[in-house]
């Protein structure tokens, strides 16, 4: 196995571990509990 493949494999393993950590802590980048309240949002179709 070449050095580049080994390095890429380490990178893949690192990302798997990071995703496991985020899943363990229930973390998401854009959760709905961060969204602003309904009163400030436009509602209606965007179709012109």
């Amino acid at each position: 196995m070449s050095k580049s493949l080994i390095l890429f494999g380490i990178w893949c393993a690192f990302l798997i571990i990071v995703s496991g950590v985020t899943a363990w802590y229930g973390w998401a980048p854009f959760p709905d509990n961060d969204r602003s309240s309904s009163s400030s949002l436009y509602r209606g179709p965007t179709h012109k």
Partner: protein
Amino acid sequence: MSGSSGSVRAITCPSCGGTIEVRAAGYTVTLACQHCGSLLDTTHADVQIITAYKRAAKNFAIALGTRGTLFGTEWQVIGALKRHSSDSGDWQEFLLFNPYAGYRWLVVAEGEWQFGTMLMDRPEGSGRTVSWRGQTYTLAGTESAETRTVLGEFYWKVARGDTASASTFEGRSGVLSHEEVAGEVTWTQLAPVDADEVASAFSVSRKFVPKPDTPSFGQRFMGAPRSGSDDLPMMFLMALAALLAIGLVQELLSYPHACAKSEAAVTVGSGPSSTKIGTIEAWRPWQFVTIDAVSSEFQNRWVDLDYSLVNRKTQQSIDAYGVVEYYTGTDSDGPWAEGSRGANTLFSSVPGGTYDIFVETGAHGWPNDPTPPANGGVDGTGTWAPPNAADLAYSGGDAWASAEKITIWFEACTGGFSWGVFWIMAILLFALPLTMLWWRLRD
């Protein structure tokens, strides 16, 4: 067998004409003539020429004047060239001489040696294919070769800076080299020679043998065409396997699932109303909580869903917002539709504990709310119905005649799948192999 170096070590004294030997050219500051005692400055032209020769003679794989036996014939190296092209890089050519056999060539490039014999009979044909002595040779490439260093004796006029058009023709039995300078054409047959055989015959200085270009680490990683390795398909497979593993990890760590269900009937245009969806037990220290909402049929309406997870122990509330909305219309392109009658709301990093889940609903019409009925009313029965029960008849036919109601079924569960994390990981996994693919294809 190899002979001693035949470097020039003698100059003529300008005073008496005697021969002076220079043993340390390049280091000697003052030179004394042993015949007349004259002292020569090293700025003397002849001394400078010797110094320049020593400098030029360095870094050749075979020293000028070396003798060696190849293919049963003893040769002496009488000339040496350093040449360069942008495609092939640097190489060295050594002119060999035997008084009975004549001239031959030794060419070394990228660590490989070739023995060259000038053709006396010109190959037939032109363009991409030529034939010589019954063999066919095909053009492999043409480049401009520049002579950078000239040393020793040659049977034609050659100087530093000369450029020639050099073509290589490959065939089953060997290689033919075609060079053209100022209309004069030379054909040479090149046959590979084992490097060890040349080294033992001519005392080759291996450190001065032109080596193949070593790709930089970046070139090797990006898969330069000459590197010979192709890790790219394996990298794509590894990225795909890692992405599947990430999806599996996310799914497995979302367990256990504890759920609560409820439904609410919301009057369009009336004020917000609150409904308790149920109570869930969050067992893990931290987890997602997902609330799915599916509504009955409606058009040109939206329903605000303000959720609250209230921790029974701490009374702290985690709030989130969702919406179900659906719009239709017609324009010059025909009918259109927009929105969804279902909504998935994700709470992240919810601490463990027991949670009461509430939702505040508010249904509105677009572009305007219908007039609310006098008796208002949200009927939250708390009875669950399957999602396909949303195919109830649209009850809002004449919004001005009766209270229009939208029924929403809720299901709240611990656990969830973060598509945001999944797609971020997908980008991080495939960015490098895709960049490598683009890098190769751009050429």
